[in-house]
């Protein structure tokens, strides 16, 4: 529980929309929590991330190889994260599945990919309606 979580430096190959002033972030686990991560920049924004696979088992990211050229070469692994928006009632938190964050953890590179022609939106509830009604 108390062990210091190691941070991975992540340099965005393209700035995140709305945050053009910084490209340098640190990725670390939320202590004691396997589902969420922090993506923080020193002087800029901080985001909570999750891995869509935890909550959306059929989530798929399709991209052309050319779109990922700056991020990874063939055979390198890319981790898929989604930015989580936490509203006043945390149980109504949503994940942005339309624009996932892809991270090459080995090289410390990341980018927000826009899934142009997918059915995903910027707000997918992480929890089902039953749970959202009872909690928070």
């Amino acid at each position, binding site marked *: 529980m108390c062990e210091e979580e190691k941070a991975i430096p992540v340099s965005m190959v393209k700035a995140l*929309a709305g945050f053009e002033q910084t490209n340098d972030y640190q990725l670390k686990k*939320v202590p*004691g929590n396997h589902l969420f991560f922090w993506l923080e920049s020193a002087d800029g924004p*901080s*985001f909570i991330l999750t891995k869509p696979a935890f909550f959306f088992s059929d989530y798929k990211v399709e991209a052309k190889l050319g779109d990922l050229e700056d991020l990874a070469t063939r055979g390198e692994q890319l981790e898929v994260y989604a930015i989580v*928006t*936490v509203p006043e009632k945390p149980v109504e938190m949503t994940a*942005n599945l339309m624009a996932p964050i892809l991270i090459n953890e080995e090289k410390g590179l990341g980018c927000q990919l826009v899934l142009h022609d997918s059915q995903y939106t910027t707000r997918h509830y992480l929890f089902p309606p039953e749970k959202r009604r009872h909690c928070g």
Partner: protein
Amino acid sequence: MLILSRKPGESVVIGENITIRILQVKGDSVKIGIEAPRETTVHRQEVYEAIMQENRAAAKVDKDIVSLLPSKIDE
């Protein structure tokens, strides 16, 4: 705003590296093809704005929120 008339198959060149070609006009919809360098991002405007808005909303997160995050999916 510069306004140009183009027919399907014709193009517009912006700067040295960006070409926009009109591919098809069908009813009230125009299909365009865009060639741009990799470092130039191209998005549908409403999509770009939605993502920017959501990024900004997500960045407003309070650091203390972590204590409220579930650590298991089925609680």
